[in-house]
């Protein structure tokens, strides 16, 4: 990967970001509901006070002017102030981000750790009971809505069996002073094992819920590509060399079969961002997704705009990572 190519990718990002900002800006402006009215609520204020607030938030200017201001400020790294928190948007987002990243990473690990072995097994034992179960399961996995599946899990494990907590990120008794913001890491760094188990027990259900559609998709991709690879001459040739079954399956077949799986996984990781909003709301997870949902209800324009920009950048970077991984796994391709 040359520096020029890297630069090219970064430049490609610019029109995407501009387009995304424009769309979000327009959609927020077109959505009914006035942030000033929402902020005032039931309080009685004079028209002068209301106008002052409007001016204070910059909402008295026409929309094209607001967009221009937003873009010029954003270029300098200033995303404005959250209407609700009255603090810079970037700070508010940064506070919530670790929780979301942690949840997404655990969901990703859960998805990869179940999808790849299941996909491989289903391919090796094609048309077996296991294969059929996995196929039906993956269909369910893609079609079950996250909020419903999440509540189902919650009812079973938290309400009936009472072996896992209902919601939140960690119990009150286990709260610790953060270091990295990732609780699973911080509890270990502080040597507090009981807090680590507490955090782990909180993250399991939301991570499974968030990772379910991804697990289903990755399992199917792995199964299909594994079946494809097992038909290849090089697998027969590897068998003709008298190699162990394990070596044929994992070194020869899986290495090739994982190429599509890994690229799809990198792209699908972007979809975890969208899933986060629902799952975080269902499980009371204090992350970015829930913050965005709340901000949409409050018509907290600056926060929604910045968060969506953040999603867009992440998505594009993940696609880029998918390309890089594809190259790393497939020696025939050079970027």
């Amino acid at each position, binding site marked *: 990967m040359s520096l020029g190519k890297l630069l090219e990718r970064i430049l490609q990002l610019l029109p995407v970001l501009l387009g995304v900002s424009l769309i979000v800006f327009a959609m927020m402006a077109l959505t009914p509901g006035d942030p000033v009215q929402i902020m005032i609520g039931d309080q009685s204020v004079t028209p002068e006070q209301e106008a002052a607030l409007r001016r204070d938030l910059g909402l008295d200017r026409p929309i094209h002017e607001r967009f221009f201001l937003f873009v010029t400020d954003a270029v300098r790294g200033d995303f404005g102030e959250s209407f609700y928190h009255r603090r810079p948007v970037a700070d508010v987002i940064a506070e919530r981000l670790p929780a979301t990243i942690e949840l997404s990473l655990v969901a990703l690990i859960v998805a990869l750790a179940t999808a790849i072995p299941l996909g491989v097994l289903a391919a090796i034992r094609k048309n077996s009971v296991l294969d059929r179960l996995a196929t039906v399961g993956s269909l369910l996995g893609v079609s079950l809505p996250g909020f419903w599946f999440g509540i189902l899990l919650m009812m079973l494990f938290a309400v009936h069996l009472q072996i896992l907590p209902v919601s939140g990120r960690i119990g009150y008794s286990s709260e610790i002073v953060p270091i990295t913001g990732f609780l699973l890491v911080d509890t270990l760094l502080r040597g507090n094992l009981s807090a680590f188990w507490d955090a782990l027990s909180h993250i399991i259900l939301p991570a499974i819920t968030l990772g379910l559609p991804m697990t289903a998709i990755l399992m199917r991709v792995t199964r299909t590509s594994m079946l494809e690879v097992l038909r290849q001459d090089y697998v027969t*040739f590897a*068998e003709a060399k008298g190699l162990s079954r394990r070596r044929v399956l994992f070194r*020869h077949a899986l290495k090739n079969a994982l190429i599509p799986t890994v690229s799809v996984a990198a792209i699908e990781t972007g979809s975890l961002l969208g899933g986060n909003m629902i799952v975080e709301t269902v499980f009371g997870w204090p992350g970015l997704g829930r913050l965005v949902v709340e901000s949409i209800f409050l018509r907290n324009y600056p926060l929604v705009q910045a968060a969506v920009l953040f999603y867009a950048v992440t998505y594009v970077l993940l696609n880029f990572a998918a390309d890089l991984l594809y190259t790393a796994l497939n020696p025939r391709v050079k970027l």
Partner: protein
Amino acid sequence: MSAPLLDVRGLRTVFETRAGTVCAVDGVDVSVHRGECLGIVGESGSGKSVTFASVMGLVKSPGRIEAGTILLDGCDLRGLTPKQMRAVRGKDIAMTMQDALTALNPALTVGEQIAEVFDAHDYTLPRRGSARARAIRDKSAEMLGLVGIPSAESRLRQYPHEFSGGMRQRIMIAIALACRPKLLIADEPTTALDVTIQAQVLELITEIRARLGMSVVLITHDLGVVAEHCDRVMVMYAGQVIEEGPTAEVIAQPQHPYTRGLLASIPRPALRGQPIRPIEGQVPDLIGLPPQCRFYSRCPLHRDACLAPVAMRSAGPNRRVRCILSGEPVE
């Protein structure tokens, strides 16, 4: 004559399909002697590749070996466990495939693909550690050198796509020969290559065969290749052997009408300007074959007696033919 290296008797390999049971190999007897090169000729679907996939134990579901014995050096390969069979594959019997581009794994370096054969079969290597790794690397480089790839040491780190077609074929041969097998099965070794490279690859196989004293089975549909490189030839048609004998004799005096047809359909410089004479008709469907001679429908000489099952007949010393018009019945 000493016992053959490979002795296959009454091999029957079938594939279960929705349309019925396909009998791809039907009662085939093959013997390969030490140091000889046996050519197997036949068109696509004649069962030549399946016969040797059966020998290698590489027939995959929905296919299975239904009957027959496969003796290698007196040991029945069909009686071996999968693990024991893996110890034979790649060590005693090795195989090359038609197209090296698809037979070599695109995601692994050439060095690794050679090294793993030594790793699986070579018990003379140091047990473990860097000494083992070094010994394997040296042996791998030596194999690449043996098949004529220059600066082998550095090329071990390259991937198959970084080599030319002829080079890849040589690499595949190097892999097959790594553990000095007693028998090499070369399945259409030249089909995917252009003519000049074809000659080089065949020369290489012939030369290494002489040097290592191994036996070679050359599966091909090119009678020219057989004429030049094989001591004996076996012609297959629709899952059966229909003619067998020393190459020179079979080509000079083919006994079976199918063999004659094959030889007549080769373009020759002497017959320039005349149309090529193909064999009319098509190979019969291998599902639910009638007991008659399988070449009946295409044979210019067929008669009513051909509608009965035809057994192999003797046609002189070391020659056999499956046609009632030639040879004599064997007891």
